[in-house]
C-alpha cells in the first residue's frame, strides 16, 4: 500500500494549493504561477543555501498555520520560509508588501548604473523586469553612484561589478560547482565586491555558469560581448555529445552564426542543467550542434519578436497613412549625439541632469 503523504494546504492571495511539507512559500507560489509568484532576485533552486538576501520576495503571512493562526509580525522572505498547514499568505493583495517591494527595488537601483543601452544583459535582465513590474518611475537618489573598475575573471568572463546586486548566486556556483574556490565577496556593506583573490584567473570547467545565474549584466560572456542584442538573436534548443556535461544548451543564433551558447533555462529563468566551459565558449560552429527546435520564449519577452516566422511587412505605406504626404524626415537622428557631451560626467552632477548641464553655448 502506498504510504499516504500528508500535504499542507496554503492559501496565497486567496488561491489555495496543496504542497509537500518542507516547501517554501515561494515554491508553493510558483506552483500557482502568474502574478501570485513573488519575484526572486537571489534565490536559485539549484543552488543550496541561496536566497534570503535580496528581499524582493518578501510576503506577508496573515496566518501562520491552522494550529497557530497568529500573523507573523514582520514580512518574511518567501524563498526561505517554509509553508505550514493552513498558512495564509498575502503577496500582491498586501499593500505592505507592495510598499516594501517598491522600496527594495529602489534600493537595488540607487547604485545601479542603469546603463542598459550598452549592457549585454538588456532584454534578459531580471532587474529590468523587476523595476518595470514593481518599481516606481523616477529616482530620489541624488548622489554620485558607486562605481568599480571592470575585471576580467579569466579569459572568458568579465565582471562589471558596478552592475552587481550582490545576490551571491555566483559565489554559490563557485562554491558548489567548482573544486577550487577563488571567487567570493571582499569587503562589506555598500563597498562589498565580488572578486577573485588577487585577480586570479578562474580556470575551472564549470565556472562559465556564473554568467547564466547572474540576474544582471555584472558577469558577461566575453565571447559574446557587444556582438549583438539578445532580441535580434534567435534562441534554439541544441545538443552535442560532450564528455563533461549533458551538452544540452540554447544556441543564440543570427542567421547561421552561433553568437552565444548558454545553458537551457526554465520558466523562472533558472538553468536546467549546468554546462561546461567547452560547450559554452568554444563550440561556436553550427556543425558542432544538433538543432532540436526553437526555444519557447514567454510572449511578453522582447526576445519573442516573431523571429521564427518571416518578417511581416505592413501593408500600408507611409503615404497612404498620411493622406498622400511623403514626409522627408520622420526623426532627426544625428550620427553623433550633440546632447551626450562626453566631457560631462553625469554621475558627478548633484541631482538629475538638466538641459543647462549640457549647455553648448556656455561651452560647459
Amino acid at each position, binding site marked *: 500500500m502506498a504510504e499516504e503523504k500528508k500535504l499542507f494546504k496554503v492559501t496565497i492571495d486567496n488561491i489555495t494549493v496543496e504542497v509537500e511539507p518542507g516547501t517554501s512559500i515561494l515554491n508553493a507560489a510558483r506552483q500557482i504561477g502568474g502574478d501570485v509568484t513573488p519575484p526572486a532576485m537571489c534565490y536559485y533552486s539549484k543552488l543550496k543555501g541561496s*536566497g*534570503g*538576501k*535580496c*528581499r*524582493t520576495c*518578501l510576503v506577508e503571512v496573515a496566518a501562520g498555520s491552522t494550529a497557530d493562526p497568529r500573523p507573523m509580525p*514582520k*514580512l518574511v*522572505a518567501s524563498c*526561505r520560509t517554509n509553508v505550514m498547514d493552513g498558512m495564509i499568505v498575502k503577496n500582491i493583495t498586501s499593500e505592505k508588501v507592495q*510598499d*516594501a517591494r517598491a*522600496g*527594495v527595488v*529602489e*534600493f*537595488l537601483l*540607487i*547604485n545601479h548604473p542603469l546603463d542598459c543601452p550598452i549592457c549585454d544583459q538588456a532584454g534578459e535582465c531580471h532587474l529590468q523586469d523587476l523595476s518595470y513590474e514593481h518599481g516606481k518611475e523616477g529616482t*530620489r*537618489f541624488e*548622489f554620485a553612484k*558607486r562605481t568599480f573598475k571592470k575585471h576580467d575573471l579569466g579569459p572568458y568572463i568579465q565582471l562589471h561589478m558596478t552592475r552587481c*546586486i*550582490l545576490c*551571491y548566486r555566483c559565489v554559490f556556483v563557485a562554491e558548489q560547482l567548482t573544486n577550487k574556490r577563488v571567487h*567570493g*565577496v571582499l*569587503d*562589506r*556593506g*555598500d*563597498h*562589498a565586491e565580488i572578486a577573485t583573490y588577487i585577480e586570479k584567473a578562474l580556470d575551472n570547467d564549470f565556472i562559465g555558469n556564473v554568467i547564466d545565474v547572474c540576474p544582471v549584466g555584472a558577469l558577461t560572456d566575453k565571447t559574446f560581448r557587444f556582438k549583438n542584442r539578445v532580441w535580434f538573436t534567435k534562441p534554439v534548443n541544441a545538443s552535442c555529445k560532450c564528455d563533461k556535461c549533458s551538452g544540452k544548451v540554447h544556441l543564440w543564433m543570427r542567421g547561421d552564426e552561433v553568437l552565444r551558447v548558454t545553458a537551457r533555462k526554465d520558466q523562472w529563468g533558472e538553468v536546467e542543467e549546468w554546462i561546461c566551459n567547452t560547450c559554452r565558449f568554444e563550440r561556436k560552429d553550427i556543425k558542432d550542434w544538433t538543432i532540436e527546435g526553437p526555444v519557447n520564449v514567454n510572449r511578453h519577452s522582447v526576445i519573442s519578436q516573431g523571429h521564427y516566422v518571416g518578417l511581416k511587412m505592413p501593408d500600408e505605406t507611409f503615404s497612404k497613412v498620411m493622406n498622400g504626404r511623403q514626409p522627408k524626415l520622420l526623426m532627426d537622428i544625428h550620427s553623433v549625439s550633440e546632447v551626450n557631451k562626453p566631457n560631462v560626467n553625469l554621475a558627478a552632477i548633484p541631482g538629475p541632469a538638466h538641459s543647462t548641464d549640457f549647455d553648448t553655448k556656455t561651452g560647459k
Partner: protein
Amino acid sequence: MATGSQAGYQIARTTKIKLSDRNNIADQNMGVKLLLKDAHVEGIRYYDTYRKQGGYAAVEKALKMTPEAIVEEVKKSGLRGRGGAGFPAGMKWSFIAKPEGIPRHLVCNADESEPGTFKDRYLMEFIPHLLIEGLIVSSFALGSNATYIYIRGEYAWIPDILEQAIAEAKANGFLGKNILGSGFDCEIYVQRGAGAYICGEETALIESLEGKRGNPRIKPPFPAVKGVWDRPTVVNNVETLAAVVPIINLGGEEYAKIGVGRSTGTKLISACGNINKPGVYEIDMTISVEEFIYSDEYCGGIANGKRLKACIPGGASVPILPANLLLKTAKGETRYMNYESLSDGGFATGSMMGSGGFIVFDEDQCVVKHTYTLARFYRHESCGQCSPCREGTGWMEKILKNIDTGKGKMSDIDLLWDIQRKIEGNTICPLGDAAAWPVAAAIRHFRDEFEWHVLNPEECQRRNYGLAHYADAREVVA
C-alpha cells in the same frame, strides 16, 4: 554663558531641584553590587585574590547540582540577556537541542562593538575570573565541553588577560578533564575577531568563529538547533554569563528579589558623553534615570555646568530621547533605569535598555551631526548581504551629510524618514533596524533641529551645536 542664549531660543532655568528631594525608593537596595563588588580589591585579576574573595564557590556548588537544576535556577532568577535584546537566559538555555551523540557548545559573545558600550571590557579586563567562573557553570549546565569566547579584535590586550585566567583556573583544577572529580570536562578557547561590529550578531559570530566571512545567517534554523558547525549552540553576552555566578551563589529566587518587575538582578551601565563621571556602574534597576545622571554616586551630573539635552540610554542602536522624555515618561511618571520603564511608551515616546551604553548629550551637542556620525558607522558596518541595509545605510549617510554640511533640503527629512521605514523590519538581521531606529528617533524628537540646519545653511557650518531649547530646564544644586 549661564543661561541658554542662542538667538531666538531663550529659556529661563525655572525649577531647581536638590538631590535630597529625589524620589528615594532606590535607597533600600541602593548599592547592591554583585558583579563589581570586588572590583576595587587589589589583585582581583589574579586567581589567588579572586579565590580568597570567595571566587569559584559557584563552580563547587554547581558541580554538585544537576545541569537541569542549574537551568531551573537561572530561569527562576529571571535573568535577561545583557547583550541587547533582553531575552530571558534560562528560557534560551532550555531551548538547546540535545540530539544523541552530537556535541553542544556555549559561546560567549565578547564582541562588544556597539558605540557607547564598554561594560564587558571592564569586566574582562579587571575581573576575568568572574567570567571564567560563569562560563564553567554555564558550560556544565548546557553540556558544553568546548566553550568559546569570541572577543572583539580591537580589544587586543584582553585575550592575554583571559588566557592567563584560563590557565590559572586550569592549574587549580577548575578547567580541563574531570573538573573537581565531577566527571565533567571543559576547555575554554579565546577567539579574536577581526574588527567587525556585525560579528557581534550571534549568527555572524558563529560564521566568523567557523573561520568564514561574518555574514549573519538566515534564521531559522536558530543556533540552539544548528549553531557552530551545525551543532546546538547557545550564544550569551559576557555580562549574562558572569551573572550566573551570583545566581548560583544566592539561588535564583534571592537574585530575582533584586531589581523590579521583569528587570531582575543588577545591570552594568557604561556611562559616557557630557557627564562628570563617565565609567562603568553597577545598578540594581530600581533607580531613576534622573538619579543616575545627577547623583554623585553615578554620573555626577552634566559636565561644565551645562544642561542635559538628550540621551541614548542603551547603546547607539536604541532611540535617542530628549531630556523631558528621558526623565519622565509621556504619562508624566518618573522613568527608571530598567527594561520596562526605559521602553515605556514604545518607540513613540520611549527607548530601550539595549546593551546599557548610556550616552549623554549636553545643550551644546548637535543631534544632526550625531545622527550623521551614527549613520556613517552603520553604513561602514553593514555586512552588505541584504539590499535594504546595504543600500539604505549608505543613502541615509549621504543625505545626513548634506544636511549636516548645510546642503540639505526640506524634502530630505521626509526622504530620510521614508528610507529608514523601508529598511526597518525588512532585513536579515537586526543591524538594519539598528541603523534605522536612531535616524527615526532623531527625526521624531528633533525634527526642528533638522529643519534649522536646512534653513540656516551657513550658521550650521559655523556652529558645532544645534538648538538648545530641548534642554532640561532644571538645574541641580547639590
